[in-house]
């Protein structure tokens, strides 16, 4: 072993590529408020793009930032848009930038009806008298990608007196519960078929919701297990007043964070990356009269 005489040679280091595991260690620390940074980093090269879009990264990212899903903004059905929904971004990152803004903030002619796991359910603002409406027009909007899917109109033979709808996930479905002059009805929209399927129908015989309507249960039924939650359909409940309301949908409470996109998908890993980080991690919905909070 002879000590090299030219040991003083400069290190010649032009930062070679870091091992991927370290890249992951670095970017897993990006706070959820600055999720745009992950997207920009994913654009550095394909390997990184795949890394940030991978399920493993998403899982670890979520574990690390538990409960820290940022508020991206909220949807407001505004009077000055004729009742149509507008996405109002939340100023989340103090440094400016990095905040999410949808490609199109206004959903012309549609109001926000429900939002869950990144999907916003829109219903067409009715221009005519609602009491005689026989069709329900819904659309699903994913603000993060800008995708909008118009669902086929849900047609009824009789005027619909009251209805409500929810977008659920895992699997992605839209469920409508309503009643007309004669009966209760429940429909599920299945995106694979791009069609509505009647799930249950029955007569509302009394002021009590009818327990023998298949698929419809009163809220006071005992708490379900997570497994049954996934398969059960709507659970309308009664408000304090005497009118029947179909307000509350709880299907997704057990859904956790993984959300399979089954709708039309023409995009690559980036949207998936985004879904995993932003949308899955929480575009939540709380009903607050006129606004739907999107987290």
């Amino acid at each position, binding site marked *: 072993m002879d*000590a090299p005489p030219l*040991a003083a040679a400069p*290190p010649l*280091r*032009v*930062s*070679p*590529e*870091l*091992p991927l*595991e*370290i*890249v*992951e*260690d*670095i*970017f*897993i*620390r*990006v706070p959820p408020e*600055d*999720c*745009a*940074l992950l*997207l*920009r*980093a994913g*654009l*550095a*090269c*394909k*390997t*990184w*793009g795949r890394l940030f879009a991978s399920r493993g990264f998403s899982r*670890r990212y979520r*574990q*690390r930032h538990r409960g820290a899903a940022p508020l991206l903004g909220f949807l407001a059905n505004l009077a000055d848009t004729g009742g149509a929904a507008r996405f109002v971004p939340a100023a989340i990152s103090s*440094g*400016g*930038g*990095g*905040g*999410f*803004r*949808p*490609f199109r903030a206004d959903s012309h002619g549609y109001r926000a009806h429900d939002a869950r796991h990144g999907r916003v359910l829109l219903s067409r603002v009715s221009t005519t008298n609602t009491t005689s409406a026989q069709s329900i027009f819904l659309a699903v909007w994913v603000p993060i*990608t*800008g995708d909008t899917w118009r669902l086929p109109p849900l047609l009824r033979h009789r005027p619909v007196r009251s209805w409500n709808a929810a977008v659920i996930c895992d699997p992605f479905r839209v469920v409508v519960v309503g009643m007309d002059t004669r009966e209760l009805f429940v429909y599920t929209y299945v995106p694979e078929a791009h069609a509505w399927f009647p799930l249950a129908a029955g007569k509302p015989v009394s002021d009590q919701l009818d327990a023998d309507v298949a698929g419809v249960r009163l809220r006071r039924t005992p708490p379900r297990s997570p497994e049954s939650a996934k398969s059960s359909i709507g659970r309308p409940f009664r408000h304090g007043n005497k009118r029947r309301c179909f307000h509350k949908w709880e299907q997704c409470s057990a859904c956790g964070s993984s959300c399979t996109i089954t709708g039309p998908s023409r*995009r690559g890993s*980036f*949207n998936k990356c*985004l879904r995993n980080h932003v949308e899955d991690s929480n575009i939540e919905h709380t009903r607050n009269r006129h606004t739907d909070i999107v987290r």
Partner: protein
Amino acid sequence: MEVDKGKGEAEETRKVAEADRDTVTLKSSDGKLFEVSKEAAARLSTVLAGMIAGGSIDDNGTDLKQIGSEALENVVDYCNKHANSIPSAALISSSISFNTAPFKEPEEWERKFVDRLSHDALFDLVEAANFLGMERLLDVTCHKISEMMKGKSPDQIREVFNIKNDYTKEELEEIRQELAWAFYDD
């Protein structure tokens, strides 16, 4: 052994013969020797702890071929500073795995420690920390780099990490259009 003395860390007076030394000698890829307290090394580095426990520590300098002298000096410096700072139980790595453990903000001295490093030194150090299984140091250095990335464009990120773009122009344009919001410059 006629090797360079590492920045005065390796004292000529060290008693090689003594079996129960309370320091370990580490040798960088370019042959420099550094001494670090055995206790701190074992506590802060899982790899060194394993070597000490396994008896594979060489009194004449344990070879760490993957780590250059500058990075190793920083590692040793960190160990010494850590040993001198208030021994905070919270910083000692627990059984929770690294990536899922809740991150503790760097302490003031740790922040200063990484702030003074050059870009290359920081990247060398993060690799050294990874190699030696020094979770806390890895935590602090990764945190620093992730902070440096704030507000950077893909081009700038590529520059910092010295990586090549392998997206086509069309692919980039398409993604940028889809995700325009991520590229706003406020």
